[in-house]
């Protein structure tokens, strides 16, 4: 969806296509939710089923962002949302009455069982850490990762080009850097790809909104043999995000 971000992430899949766990971290001064929107809309464009577990924002918010990016999420057959904020939707209330996160996992599993190339987006996991114990939340994340890694890959058009390629299932999870360092590290080591949005080290700038650090913990599978990683400045516009590399490390 965002061309610059797509270029950076294009090599993130490996040959095993075992399912990709993407962890997005952000801070109060650097919002990383644009990465979630990128994954939602790029996968919808590729007609890949996307399930959004919304614990932080209302469906209206995602619809508004979607319209700005040229998508009507409400009419999409490939998009479904699990809303943890409201009691109106019977499907969406179980977050509040949940005794154990296992129920949420079972629901997810039923939704995507035997689907090819599923995209699960969790916004954001901090809410779960507040509602449940760390052990329960870690279990849930582990099972979600297991779920997407067990899904078969799908052959689809990726990005702006018409090139067909195998696409694996993805779990994209936003986490604010408010949790304990130990918890953050534990999740980071479970992830295949970590995208950290931070404010500029040099302070506020009009031209740059923040910096995005990309770390891959899996071996790249691209023919070019390039590792996914590096540090980028990003600037958020009305319906686009511009990225520029400033340090390869």
């Amino acid at each position, binding site marked *: 969806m965002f061309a610059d971000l797509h270029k950076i992430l294009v090599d993130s899949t490996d040959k*095993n296509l075992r399912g990709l766990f993407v962890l997005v971290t952000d801070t109060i001064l650097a919002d990383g939710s644009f990465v979630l929107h990128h994954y939602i809309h790029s996968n919808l464009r590729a007609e890949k089923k996307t399930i959004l577990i919304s614990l932080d924002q209302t469906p209206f918010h995602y619809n508004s962002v979607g319209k700005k990016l040229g998508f009507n999420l409400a009419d999409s057959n490939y998009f479904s949302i699990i809303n943890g904020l409201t009691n109106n939707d019977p499907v969406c209330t179980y977050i509040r009455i949940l005794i154990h996160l296992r129920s949420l996992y079972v629901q997810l599993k039923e939704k995507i069982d035997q689907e090819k190339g599923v995209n699960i987006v969790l916004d954001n996991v901090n809410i779960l850490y507040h509602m449940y114990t760390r052990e329960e939340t870690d279990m849930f994340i582990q*099972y979600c990762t*297991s779920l997407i890694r067990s899904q078969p890959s799908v052959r689809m058009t990726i990005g702006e080009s018409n090139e067909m390629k195998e696409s694996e299932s993805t779990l994209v999870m936003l986490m604010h850097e408010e949790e304990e360092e130990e918890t953050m590290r534990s999740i980071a*080591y479970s992830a295949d790809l*970590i995208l950290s949005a931070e404010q500029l080290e040099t302070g506020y700038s009009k031209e740059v909104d923040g910096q995005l650090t990309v770390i891959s*913990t*899996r071996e790249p*599978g691209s023919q*070019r*043999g390039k590792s996914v990683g590096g540090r980028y400045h990003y600037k958020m516009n009305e319906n686009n995000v511009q990225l520029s590399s400033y340090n390869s490390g």
Partner: protein
Amino acid sequence: MTSSFVRRGQATKNVKFSHPVFDWCKKDKSNESRLISIQNGHLRTVVEAKILLEEFLNGLSNSTSILYLSLEDSAAAKKAAMSARLGQKTNQIIFLDCWSDAYGWNAEDQNPSEEIWRDINDTAGLVSYITEWRKKHPQDAFIVLDHISRLHHHSPADGGLLPLILQSLRQEVSSTHACHVIAFSHTELLSASAASALEYISDAIVRVSLDTTTTSQPLVKTETVLRRRSGKSQVSQELYKRTTDNVRRLVDFELTKASSGEPAKAGKQSDPTANLTFNLKLTDEENKARESVVLPYRHHLNAKEEKKSVIYLDDDDDAFNDEDDDLDI
């Protein structure tokens, strides 16, 4: 040790990989189970540490039995990922999936697989499984725990499972063959006390990190501590580089130079005076002339030996014996 593997669609290529732990395992005739701890120190070196672990397995002989407890990925995914580097050797490994259904949430699934361990908190059961496996594989064997940090996360006692496994293996009577345990860990995920406890019970510690000081391309550095029964420890550092093939998944580590006690230097030493705009090199004649110059501070070497003494001339003004006038005050 020379490890060989088959590249997909390419001829077999030999890649030299050696490590002090290999020699140490070979020389050890006690047939006692040893604990080898491979420790990754940073999130950015996860891939390199994993490749190192695979190189270890690749270097084992074909008659060695290997039990691989996968604690961070499904057995199927792990097998697929390893097969690229290990080739046919992957079939030699028995995988136990301790991750996919670690808490039994999928226990009601229609096709339960025997390879899946469904209760990660059942430490005693896991030890029994390993003991039974060992009984069925009495020859030289290795048990790999990938990664132990995850077990520690679930077990309240620091390193609770490892001592139990080692204890049970050491109880087994095996006069001719040893069963070693390789514990892979991310040290950042262990508490300080757990990391310390792990090192104390380990017989060999291999710490993996990146070395950016030697060449422009980061090398993989391992710091190895071999702890002998006598109480002595041998510390060494090894440097490895990754080959630059196009297909990165099949690229292996290549030993550049290993030394005992000193960091190795990679490749040929570069000449820092090679690309200067002025001349810093001397001809043979200039070198001879330079060497023949006697530097000022070396003149005393040519001086003749003579008897030296200190001459003191008494001065009338010297007041050694004068009384202090102020004493009367």
